[in-house]
């Protein structure tokens, strides 16, 4: 029973990582109705920028804010420069662009900062908090930051004009254009915000998994899984999904005999697929009515 309790707590701690990333996934989905495969690599690149700023002697929070700004500009520019010309290309072409961006960021980061793991500082310290340190100060801080971002995002989409316009632009570009929303600008704005949230996620995750160019490889998948499980249209659902994935994964690894330890990720994913088969729009997602 003690192990169970510890694994659940441990799962919530790791789930915080996934929840963070899941929020970035929801952000981009709300803005462009796509999943961006390069999102993890963009977050990794942002984190390296933060690391570089810290190396140059910037204080932590200055580096943090500056990185968010740079990431926003970077995301905005990528949309304008790389994706704008392909506005009318088929979806699969966009997918290839995402894959290309993925390769470029990964390769560039390795080229500039090489592949050795680097420790990344935490603003919350590393002291153990409770449960014999199962959740450390940093993890608790990370969960807090995730919840703050969640709250901001929720408020943004629910109460601001830009947020509403962005959702409209993504859900139905033609109608949105008719009511005077600048669909292109909205997409670029969405990219910028998603890049910033990704930067927050990267900066929060790096102290736990260490900084290196491949750090986001699997975290992005967990983030996707969490977001999809909770519902891509619901930031709160995505955060819940992230935590759920962390806990499910730990429990599968601990309690399923023979194959559990070796297959904890596939088992967790299979469970999510089962959930999706039963509830195709995720646990908290809205059902989309299809028109013929």
């Amino acid at each position: 029973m003690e192990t169970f309790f510890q694994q659940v707590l441990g799962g919530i701690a790791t789930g915080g990582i996934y929840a963070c990333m899941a929020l970035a996934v929801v952000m981009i989905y709300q803005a462009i109705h796509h999943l961006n495969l390069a999102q993890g690599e963009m977050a990794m690149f942002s984190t390296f920028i933060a690391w570089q700023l810290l190396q140059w002697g910037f204080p932590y929070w200055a580096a943090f804010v500056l990185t968010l700004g740079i990431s926003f500009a970077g995301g905005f520019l990528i949309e304008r420069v790389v994706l704008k010309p392909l506005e009318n290309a088929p979806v699969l072409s966009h997918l290839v662009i995402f894959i290309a961006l993925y390769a470029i960021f990964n390769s560039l980061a390795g080229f500039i900062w090489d592949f050795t793991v680097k420790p990344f500082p935490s603003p919350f310290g590393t002291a153990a908090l409770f449960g014999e340190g199962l959740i450390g100060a940093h993890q608790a801080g990370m969960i807090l930051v995730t919840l703050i971002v969640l709250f901001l995002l929720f408020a943004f989409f629910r109460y601001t004009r830009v947020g509403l316009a962005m959702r409209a632009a993504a859900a139905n570009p033609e109608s949105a254009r008719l009511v005077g929303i600048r669909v292109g600008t909205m997409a670029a704005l969405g990219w910028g915000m998603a890049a910033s949230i990704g930067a927050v996620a990267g900066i929060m995750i790096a102290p736990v998994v260490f900084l290196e160019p491949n750090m986001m490889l699997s975290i992005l998948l967990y983030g996707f899984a969490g977001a999809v499980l909770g519902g891509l249209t619901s930031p709160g659902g995505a955060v819940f999904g992230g935590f759920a994935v962390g806990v499910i994964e730990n429990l599968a690894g601990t309690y399923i005999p023979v194959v559990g330890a070796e297959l904890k990720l596939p088992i967790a994913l299979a469970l999510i697929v089962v959930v999706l088969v039963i509830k195709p729009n995720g646990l908290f997602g809205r059902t989309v009515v299809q028109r013929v």
Partner: protein
Amino acid sequence: MKKDLRYLGTLGVAAGAAVFAFAAGAAETGVTDTTIKIGLVQPFSGPASAYSQIAKTDQAYIKMLNDTGGVCGRQIDLIAYDDGYSPPKTVEQTRKLVESDEVMFIFNGLGTPTNSAILKYMNAKKVPQLFVATGASKFGDPKGHPWTMGWQPNYVDEGKIYAAYIRENLPDGKIGVLYQNDDYGKDYLNGLKAGLGDKASMIVAEQPYETSDPTVDSQIINLKASGADIFVNVGTPKFAAQAIKKAAEIDWKPTQFLNSVSNSVGAVLKPAGLEASTGVISAAYLKDPQDPQWKDDAGLKKWHDFMDKYYPDGDKTSSFTIYGYGVSQTLEHVLRSTCDDLTRAGVMKAAANIKDLELDVSLPGINVNTGPDDFYPLQSMQLEKFNGERFELFGNVLDGASASN
């Protein structure tokens, strides 16, 4: 039978061609009067690209050799290709090197699955697959694969060394193992079990992890819960560091053994936290450049000079650059000792006839030794303990093969 006859025919043609070639004064494939062409395949891209630092060090070393006059009066042309750690790509790139670039041999290919993929091909073609960069025990089989040779101490032997230490000093302990779920992790685990022999039941928990796992937190919690008081950490640098850090965070204080792949102070113990790492036991065969005891070491001095001049971007805290230097130095030795017989067979013969070669970067007393029946160039290691600042070597130089009983 029919097949044999055809092979005989081929042999006849080949012999004829050889005689003809000899008459024309041509030398071995890849060798001219002024150059020796060597091939190398490593992951320069993809998730395993961190290892390509080894290849870059190899290239830098060859450049140094060429700048100082080359070997056997010839310049070395080292052609390096990228396989992204994908076995089909390794086959393609290797065939390109052998059949299109016509290299004399392949040097220091990296990875177990990748080298396994070309093992048969290289031996059928009788092209040396020299000093593969993997500690898997299967790359040292002179009978089965006479054209393939490893270099570093193999993982099984290292596992046995830890087992011997545990049997002797911690006979009542309970062992928990964290291992990467691939050939590398499993070789260690098997070595550990073989070394423990009848005491293998001391292992109370085995926790695998995948390289796709973001963290190994869950595994460490389970290991602690198993009641283990000895922790054998068979992870690559990132995961090994995470494990040490997590163990300290959850207040688990076992006697820790850290596999040599990850015993770098700069790349593992520092990120994990020096305090949390204090007391970690590991085994080494190469010098750690971070270790102040080698401050005035002549061998490492040469390595420092080499790094400054030929690989200034290289990471001096990484064990990969030390590794690349050591393996390249061994290559230099092999080539120099076969100058009068620069053939593929000659290279293999020289590689299988190294006696007590001292490397600049290997620990004192750990030398390269091979023989016609011994295709494991390095086999000895020495235990070391981390004192919060650096590793301190202790005990004798141990031979993995004899550590089991």
